[in-house]
């Protein structure tokens, strides 16, 4: 494994506050080349803020972001865009652009100021749309597409950008189960071919299944960073999400399943404690707490 210093993308001690509220506090994150790092955490944990800071869209007050060894702030915006792409969480209102036109915008950072996208760019855009199965509505304007279709178009645009680092903010939030698998399979495949990706993923099971590493954010801090097996421990999940859970390998796919049992503050007698899962969750609370403490030295509450 590569060292942290040679990471494709590295966020170093990022701090971002709006007025008195700290949205990010001393956040460290790195992704090596050919790694898919999943960003998980409850609502408002700072996942989108962190992704936007890494993308250079938002400028944190503290810390720095390093893209392939270069500090982001010292790079021209267009050079950054030629190397790193961001798939936004909420597809913005697109004012009559067709899907194809939007995907072609991914080529802008690669064009000279007066250059118009040529046949090669068209081909790249077409290929990107084939990968996300969006070519069938290439000529439709985005406002006529469903949320999921639109999201796939934005993934296509990021692919057309031909980035070496791909940032995705909840790329599967609006997708049906089939396209959820297709999009994540696609990202996984590209990562296996050498792309570096950081993705905020809500679904813990999906995150465990596709990511090499998970970074768990809670209240703007990194609560855990490690392999899915290390991070998705019931005690850590309870600390971050306030939910008691059981974690076990899926008998079919082999990847981790997170069974959510009940909110942690609920009366335990109401929980189906007879099942193995419930007991499992309870036991692992004691079993894993020492390890969790070691993994997150700054977090005092565990």
């Amino acid at each position, binding site marked *: 494994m590569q060292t942290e210093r040679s990471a494709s993308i590295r966020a170093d001690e990022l701090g971002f506050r709006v007025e008195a509220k700290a949205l990010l506090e001393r956040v460290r994150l790195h992704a090596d080349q050919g790694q898919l790092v999943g960003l998980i955490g409850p609502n408002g944990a700072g996942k989108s803020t962190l992704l936007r800071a890494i993308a*250079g869209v938002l400028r944190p007050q503290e810390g720095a972001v390093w893209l392939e060894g270069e500090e982001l702030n010292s790079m021209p915006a267009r050079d950054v865009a030629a190397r790193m792409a961001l798939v*936004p969480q909420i597809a913005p209102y697109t*004012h009559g*652009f067709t899907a194809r036109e939007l995907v072609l915008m991914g080529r802008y950072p690669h*064009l000279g100021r007066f250059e*118009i996208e040529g046949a090669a760019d068209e081909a790249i855009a077409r290929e990107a749309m084939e990968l996300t199965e969006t070519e069938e509505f290439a000529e439709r304007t985005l406002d006529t597409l469903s949320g999921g279709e639109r999201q796939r178009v934005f993934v296509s645009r990021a692919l057309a950008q031909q980035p070496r680092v791909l940032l995705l903010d909840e790329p599967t939030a609006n997708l049906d189960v089939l396209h959820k698998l297709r999009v994540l399979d696609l990202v996984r495949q590209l990562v296996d071919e050498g792309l570096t990706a950081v993705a905020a993923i809500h679904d813990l099971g999906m995150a465990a299944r596709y990511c090499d590493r998970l970074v768990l954010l809670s209240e703007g801090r990194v609560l855990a960073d490690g392999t899915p097996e290390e991070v998705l421990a019931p005690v850590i999940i309870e600390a971050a999400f306030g939910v008691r859970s059981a974690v076990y390998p899926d008998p079919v796919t082999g990847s981790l399943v997170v069974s959510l049992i009940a909110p942690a503050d609920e009366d335990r007698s109401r929980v189906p404690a007879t099942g193995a899962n419930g007991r499992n969750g309870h036991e692992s609370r004691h079993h894993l707490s020492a390890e969790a403490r070691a993994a997150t030295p700054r977090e005092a509450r565990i």
Partner: protein
Amino acid sequence: MREAARLTSVREFRQAGISVRLAVGGVLLGGLVLLTSLISLSLGPVEIPAGHVAAVVLSFVGMDVAEVGRTEHLVIEQIRLPRILVGAFVGMALAVAGATMQGLFRNPMADPGIIGVSAGGALGAVIAIATGLTGLFFLALPSFAFVGAVAATLLVYGIAAVGGHFSMATLLLAGVAVNAFLGAVISAIIILLPDNEALREVLFWLAGGLDSRSWEHVHISAPLIVGAAIVILVRARDLNLLMLGDDEARALGVRVGVTRVALLAAAALATGAAVAVSGTIAFVGLVTPHILRLVLGPDHRVLIPLSALAGAVFVIVADTFARTIIQPAEFRVGVLTAFVGAPFFVLLLIRNKRQAYAL
């Protein structure tokens, strides 16, 4: 059936590459600029045959094809041509500024005067008229109008940027407030005007007009307008991304702050220059880009240059009607553009709504 065929051809045109849309649109609209200009040159109290018009125009570029009477030559050279050119540049400025503002504000209802430019220009002009300065020197009116336009824009921008937190929403609201305030000041001045002659002059100016525009007007407005249009054209691709949102634009390599200020300043300068030489001409900046967007799509690399040509055609045609329909008197071109533009716009909205249902 024919409707359907026409619709397909429009849609195919919409889907054509940028260079195809630019070339076809440019040739068509460029031709239309020339054609309407030539027709406009021949119409008026003194009717000049098309052949003579062509001969005079060719003589400007050093080609003497036919002998034309001295009067006709003078009418074309000193009266009609500068007026048409001022109209063309004003239309170009308003349409380009309108398209830019609509992109920046992500709102098809934005208009070149949205950040107070027109109201500021109007106040400057009204002050020049009310104080009698217009009688003292020829350029008093345009220079006061221009200074007013720039000052109002800076004021609105300053309000939006106060405290270091710039936002387009604040800019829009500050524009609304400043527009309302300047409107009130203008009304107050009009009410307090002592003499009827000045009152008439103010109302005339506010209605927007191109009467007795000279080469000086061309010389003071054209460089600013062309310069501003070039600045906008250079950033047309960035404007596409800005329309999707600041984050989107930044993630795709646009320096959002610098680009936005450059675009706002250029649009305001073009509008200010137009207002200075023509008063407030309504609806050109709103309608022209809107119609073109329906046919050409929203890409500003196509929209901006073709809006410039279409805006020129719009004002040339409107002004030709304004000065010929009630001869020997003159209608105000600004009144006419709103009079024709507004119903046409409504018609377009209704038709398009129906199409949207049918598709």
